[in-house]
């Protein structure tokens, strides 16, 4: 009797302990958001939020802080990265999980893992050494008169390579959850492997592909150092992908700690971080809603 009461107590205790710990980790997110907001209150009090979000004027000495160019910079680089990475990693993941011989699979997988283990700074250096000159000398002259190579496109390409392994590994997980019997059902009707992938595997994987894309976008939005090295960091709305951009994380990383003697600069940078946070949060929330809808449509 005593023993079983002790076990019951342990069960309750461990349950509560885990609850506390998980609450703690959720609380960190809330605390970060609250902290950022609190620190950016000074600038929010002096400048209307619409002005902060939609003005292109960034003149710290005149107390003008418009984030539009930075927000645009972040979004453009991220969209480019996804446009490049998603089709490629879809094809790659499909090939590895559906077509590749076992031996090739065993060689390819460690490389993809390795790709995700490379520190961002190395991607940055690689971007500066290879991608930027390539864009400047080979690619851009076909389209624009002058380009430094440090551009939204360079950022997009470097970011694409960085989110490649994440996308591939999640997509492969997604494809692995498709039951073999479902593929066999399609094959037994005389469909070939490609028709089966196209009409059955991809369609059934749609929610998963979306989820993978969301994760990749969140990662891309927040990536700092590699992007900062290749984007050129000029705060202007770009006219083409060959123009420089200045993404939000680069703004924070470049200036935090240096320029804090300027009044309000501190609050402005905190607001930049808060905006980044809100963009990623909203993005996740909306896509979760879409995901939920998709799953409901697919499975009910």
């Amino acid at each position: 009797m005593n023993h079983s009461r002790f076990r019951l107590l342990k069960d309750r205790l461990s349950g509560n302990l885990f609850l506390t710990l998980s609450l703690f980790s959720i609380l960190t997110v809330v605390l970060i958001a609250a902290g950022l907001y609190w620190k950016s209150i000074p600038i929010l009090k002096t400048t209307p939020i619409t002005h902060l979000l939609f003005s292109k004027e960034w003149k710290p000495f005149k107390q003008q802080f418009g984030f539009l160019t930075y927000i645009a910079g972040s979004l453009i680089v991220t969209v480019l990265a996804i446009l490049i990475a998603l089709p490629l990693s879809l094809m790659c993941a499909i090939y590895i999980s559906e077509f590749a011989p076992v031996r090739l699979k065993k060689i390819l997988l460690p490389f993809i893992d390795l790709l995700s283990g490379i520190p961002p700074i190395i991607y940055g250096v690689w971007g500066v050494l290879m991608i930027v000159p390539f864009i400047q000398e080979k690619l851009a002259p076909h389209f624009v008169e002058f380009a430094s190579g440090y551009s939204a496109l360079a950022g997009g390409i470097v970011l694409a390579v960085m989110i490649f392994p994440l996308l591939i590994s999640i997509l492969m997980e997604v494809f692995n959850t498709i039951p073999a019997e479902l593929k066999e059902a399609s094959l037994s009707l005389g469909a070939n492997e490609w028709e089966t992938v196209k009409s059955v595997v991809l369609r059934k994987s749609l929610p998963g592909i979306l989820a993978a894309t969301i994760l990749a976008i969140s990662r891309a939005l927040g990536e700092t150092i590699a992007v900062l090295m290749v984007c050129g960091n000029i705060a202007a709305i770009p006219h083409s992908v060959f123009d420089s951009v200045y993404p939000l994380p680069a703004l924070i990383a470049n200036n935090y700690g240096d320029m804090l003697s300027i009044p309000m600069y501190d609050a402005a940078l905190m607001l930049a971080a808060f905006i980044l946070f809100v963009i990623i949060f909203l993005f996740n929330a909306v896509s979760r809603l879409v995901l939920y809808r998709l799953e409901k449509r697919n499975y009910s």
Partner: protein
Amino acid sequence: MTTGTPHISVRGLNVHINGHPILRNISIDIPDKGITSFIGPSGCGKTTLLKTLNRLLDRNKKVKIDGQVLVDGEDIYGKGVEVTGMRKKMGLLSQRPFPLPMSIYDNIAYGPRIHGIRKKKDLDATVEHYLRATYLWDEVKDRLNSSAGGLSIGQQQRLCLARGLAVEPEIILGDEPTSALDPVSTQKIEELFLQLKDKYTLVLVTHILRQARRISDNIAFLYMGELIEFGPAEEVLLHPKEKLTQDYVKGYIS
């Protein structure tokens, strides 16, 4: 046993999966038309045998297959065999229904579309014909464009049967096709099989002896990867020649 040329002829078939022997030296002539059932305890290789018949098994690279499977006299493991064309000859019903992730209409139209039927009128006719053939038409005609996942399990299995019939196969393979279904749905599927057996060759895997008795014309009993006995259903079930078959039929081994 039915006379005439066999529809499917298996010759000296050995299957190894991951180096383990699963089927040993199987030779069996499955007659044209009628229902042939594979029975035997779990793990005896009956599903494996079924899946070698339309080459779904060798998609898995760890599988080694020796021997011949002749369908209409052609070795489907021979060189230069067009696998998709061969598979089209055979409908497949799996243990649980797996409707394709699309609408009821598209589930049926999927196969015909692949094989080149494009006209909406022809597709409409095909869809209706096979939904009627499986007695689904009245149940789903008002929601052809809604997801097939919304149907009951029993309806889904009939949809899968209709989907298979829509590519006009000669053979229907069933891997315990009623094992996930309730008794009423099971009965419907069995009735359909009995109607189809005049036009198609049906090969079913079942571990339900009573079902084998109810619907089979011929029964093959497999045990530990070997074909123990094959013959007309009544003979195998009521007067088995082999001791192992006797034990299984009487319920001593299962």
